[in-house]
């Protein structure tokens, strides 16, 4: 039922009995406001602490502490199976597409492969002849024979840095398969890069295009030595070439083996352009199809003891650090 509003004006002042209740309510309100402010302050402090922690971690990372590297590789170890699983559906689609493409191009591919086999047969006989000659000459000079067949470990590329600043590849093999820092990573086409960090079940590869990559190389038939320097572009540049280099377009670039870290003679790429005093190299590796790679366990070449003692003897200059 609708009730008529009372004509009497209510007393704005509550009876004296209610005063303690109002005071208590006011106190509670104040307490709540204080609690809210404290809570907001705690949240702000938490955010500030996390920002400070992130900034501190960045600074500490610059110092290159082993513990942080270990933590990074442990996280990669833990994620490597998930990374491989994430790649699986796409890999299946790619394989199917490649199969269909191969079927369609079977005829022309067959002709190309026949021509390739002919060419390689010729090269093989030349290589055998040269090897025999090389062995004979080495024996004549009493030089030790070089064992140029490093042990190979096949691994799969399951991750990449995928950011504009660094693009390190992640392999699904680590110490458990004998991988170690500095090992060369190749595929059927040529040098991919080298291992820069190893975990128990994963390893990180610095591709030769990375801005931190420096590979000692030899160029073309002239054999000019140089250093292939990555700059985060698809085409690394040749530096530290000798004066008046005899580099020509299309010259093949191979690892020189200097420094003893990488095996000599690994195909790296081809000279693509010479511009602004820069020699631009196009790597052989097709980055879009990089899936399985081989990691080379190259024992390296240690200088003979006699040479070492001579190098450190007074009067003999110390060898400078290798680029």
């Amino acid at each position: 039922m609708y009730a008529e509003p009372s004509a009497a004006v209510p007393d704005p002042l509550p009876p004296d009995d209610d005063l303690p209740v109002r005071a208590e309510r006011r106190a509670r309100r104040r307490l709540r406001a204080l609690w809210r402010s404290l809570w907001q302050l705690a949240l702000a402090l938490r955010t500030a602490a996390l920002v400070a922690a992130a900034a501190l971690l960045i600074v500490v990372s610059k110092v290159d502490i082993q513990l942080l590297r270990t933590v990074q590789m442990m996280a990669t170890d833990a994620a490597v199976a998930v990374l491989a699983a994430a790649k699986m559906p796409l890999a299946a689609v790619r394989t199917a597409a490649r199969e269909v493409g191969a079927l369609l191009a079977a005829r022309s591919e067959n002709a190309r492969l026949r021509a390739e086999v002919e060419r390689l047969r010729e090269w093989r006989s030349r290589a055998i002849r040269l090897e025999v000659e090389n062995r004979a000459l080495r024996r004549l000079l009493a030089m030790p024979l070089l064992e140029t067949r490093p042990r190979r470990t096949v691994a799969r590329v399951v991750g990449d840095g995928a950011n504009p600043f660094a693009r390190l590849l992640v392999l699904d093999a680590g110490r458990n398969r004998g991988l170690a820092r500095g090992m060369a990573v190749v595929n059927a086409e040529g040098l991919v890069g080298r291992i820069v960090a190893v975990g128990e079940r994963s390893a990180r590869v610095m591709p030769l295009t990375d801005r931190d990559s420096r590979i000692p190389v030899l160029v073309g038939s002239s054999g000019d030595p140089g250093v292939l320097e990555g700059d985060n572009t698809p085409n690394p540049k040749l530096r530290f070439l000798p004066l008046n280099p005899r580099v020509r377009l299309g010259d093949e670039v191979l690892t020189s083996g200097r420094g003893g870290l990488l095996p000599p003679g690994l195909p790296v790429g081809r000279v693509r352009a010479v511009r602004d005093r820069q020699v631009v190299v196009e790597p052989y590796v097709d980055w879009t199809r990089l899936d399985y790679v081989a990691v080379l366990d190259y024992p390296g070449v240690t200088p003979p003891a006699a040479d070492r003692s001579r190098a450190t003897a007074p009067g003999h200059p110390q060898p400078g650090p290798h680029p």
Partner: protein
Amino acid sequence: MTRVPARLARPLADTMPPLTGLAAVILDRAALGSLAPDAPDTDLTLAVAFYWALYRPEIMGPPLLFLLGLLSDALAGLPLGFTALTLLALGLLVRGGARWLPAQPPPLIWAAFAVVAVSVALLRWLLASLYFAWPFAPGPLLLQLGLTLLLYPPIAWLLDRLRRSAPETDHARTP
């Protein structure tokens, strides 16, 4: 998308931001596309973090953003704290708009994402240039930014569907 039972809705709604954030980090770091040094890539983590920081700020708060950033750095081989710091910056930028922005039309939210993404990219570029002492070309970063902006609407649509399939019962937000 079918709705989940009410008793499961809340826990499911609360686990969606960390789970989708984790999936975004993994997808960003998995070798899915081209591995070429100049190949364009997207920043799914940024898009997912922005979405949840807007719609579920109490879950996608600074601690979760920090952890996702650390994981991303560890997997990418970047200095630890690099992505964590940029995601925390994202959280701070989004916090101001988290009250009123979810109720705005999608184009406005997209524009807000563009502003945040540009700011975060600038911060990343500055941090990387200072840390590595290398003048990184802005091209790849701009390309990544562009692709991420293009990818945001479908990602937001997908996450919207996910969020609506298990709406948080206590404080359901409507965009």
